[in-house]
């Protein structure tokens, strides 16, 4: 196309860097756009599945955005949703198979939620809003940025839920066994942290802190 006449944009120009950094804070998919909440509630009881989930979503979104951006001028607008779904579904199946082959235990824990990446609103949202209208490289950055914005919330939530709910981190016992009531101590794990409502409340607290610090995000009512 006509891009050779123009001056080439540097790979990590200010605009491109923004694509990665904005979704981490100001444009965060979970805390600001409130997308992808269901998987954030479901997979964050432990740190490990949350981390694997974040990586999986990142792979699907990064590659998916590249594919859609490359095809964007050839996809007929009327059937674009179906094309997008085919791309996501193919990528999710790939991720699922890779997880089953190399991380079977985690894939068991994530169970249906790997398959449900297909319905993760963030992915469709980025395809529609960004990849359909932008070039390959910025689309890739946007996909990675949004997936990481989603991922770090997942990991923070899972950190608190696993630490307070199970007394472990990444499966390692952090609270000494002697502290527990059953062993004559005083401590007990907070069973409510493992239940989904507490994930919602934890996400809520993150949103609260973010809006307290960035006042522009507060809606007028």
């Amino acid at each position, binding site marked *: 196309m006509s891009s050779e006449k123009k001056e080439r944009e540097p790979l990590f120009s200010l605009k491109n860097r923004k694509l990665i950094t904005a979704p981490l804070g100001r444009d965060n998919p979970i805390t600001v756009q409130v997308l992808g909440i269901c998987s954030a509630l479901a997979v964050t009881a432990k740190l490990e599945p949350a981390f694997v989930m974040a990586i999986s979503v990142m792979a699907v979104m990064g590659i998916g955005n590249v594919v859609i951006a490359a095809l964007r001028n050839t996809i007929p607008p009327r059937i674009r949703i179906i094309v997008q779904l085919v791309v996501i579904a193919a990528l999710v199946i790939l991720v699922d198979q890779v997880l089953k082959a190399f991380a079977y235990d985690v894939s068991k824990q994530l169970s249906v939620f790997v398959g449900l990446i297909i319905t993760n609103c963030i992915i469709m949202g980025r395809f529609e809003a960004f990849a359909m209208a932008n070039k390959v490289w910025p689309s890739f950055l946007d996909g990675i940025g949004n997936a990481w914005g989603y991922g770090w919330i997942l990991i923070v939530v899972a950190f608190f839920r696993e630490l307070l709910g199970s007394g472990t981190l990444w499966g390692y016992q952090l609270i000494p066994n002697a502290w527990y009531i059953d062993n004559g101590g*005083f401590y*007990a794990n907070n*069973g409510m942290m493992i239940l989904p409502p507490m994930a919602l409340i934890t996400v809520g607290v993150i949103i609260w802190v973010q809006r307290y610090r960035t006042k522009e995000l507060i809606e007028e009512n």
Partner: protein
Amino acid sequence: MKALRNFLDKIKPQFEKGGKFAKLQSTFEAFETFLYVPNRVTLTGSHIRDANDLKRTMALVVLAMIPALLFGMWNVGYQHFLSTAAETGDIWQNFWFGCIRVFPIIVVSYVVGLGTEFVFAQIRGHEVNEGFLVSGMLIPLVMPPDVPLWMVAVATVFAVIFGKEVFGGTGMNILNPALTARAFLFFAYPKNMSGDQVWIAGQGDAVSGATPLGDALASTTTPGSSLTLPDTMDMFYGFMPGSIGETSTLAILIGAVILLFTGMASWRIMLSVFVGGLLMGYIFNWVGANAYMEISPWDHMVMGGFAFGAVFMATDPVTATQSTKGKYIYGFLIGFFAILVRVFNPAYPEGMMLAILLMNVFAPLIDHYVIQANVKKRRKRWAAAQVAA
């Protein structure tokens, strides 16, 4: 007294704008108005028809809880000495033992809860509200006597922040804060909030400490077991294990009389809670599929936290419905669901807590429909009058 007033007047300028401790203004204000009647008067027209302010309301409700608290203290000791058969206490020994067990829970609840409120008042720069005076007393009353103090603290913080402050503080909350605290503990630390090991402080080894509700539950889950409840009058007076303030229906009724006499609580809600509970009890009697369903509805009224919830929790003016008709519906459904949850769901022995929290959430909806129905009725009447004219 004069000295105290002088002292307050002396340090007051430091807390005003520009003073050294201007940031702590709301803290100072809270203490000052707690100790002395504020000397501010309304300058323009106002709608107040009673000198009853939030502080006096709260004080009266706390007063109404005192009988239940005193009996609860005595009962904690009584159950303790009953379970350790080796020693028996007289009335003062019982009371003293209970006092030592219960008092720390009250202190923790108040210190932690008020501390959280003060912190929020400082950050947000508004006055400290008196709302926690009642919640702080309700929380100890719905705890098992053996609950670890740090759990009380965690639950209180959770209840004040997520039950109240996120909605905008006193008067804006959707859920009853004291029940939020209890529900939090119930789901977070079920081992310390249910079962047959937590209801008697310093329990003897060979004794089962199950509450009558726990016994009734066991009769449905263990096949072949029969159900023997304590005497109804014993349960009415409160000689049974249970949460600190909820065992004695008699003491709670004394509180109810105080609340109703001073006009603090709605008799409509109280009455309809009991009606709803009795009706559901009779329906279960009529079905009679197992021993639990055949319990007399009147026993349901005196078991567990039913009476306590009906008198002190359901009538919380902030979380209850506001319209007259809505109050009947709200109360009736609380009683109805409380018995339903109790009998049908073996995982949740205390249905009263869940029923009240559920109806707290539905209260605005009930009010909305009551008002809409009224609007519709009046519109129809108006239309009919137009036609006639």
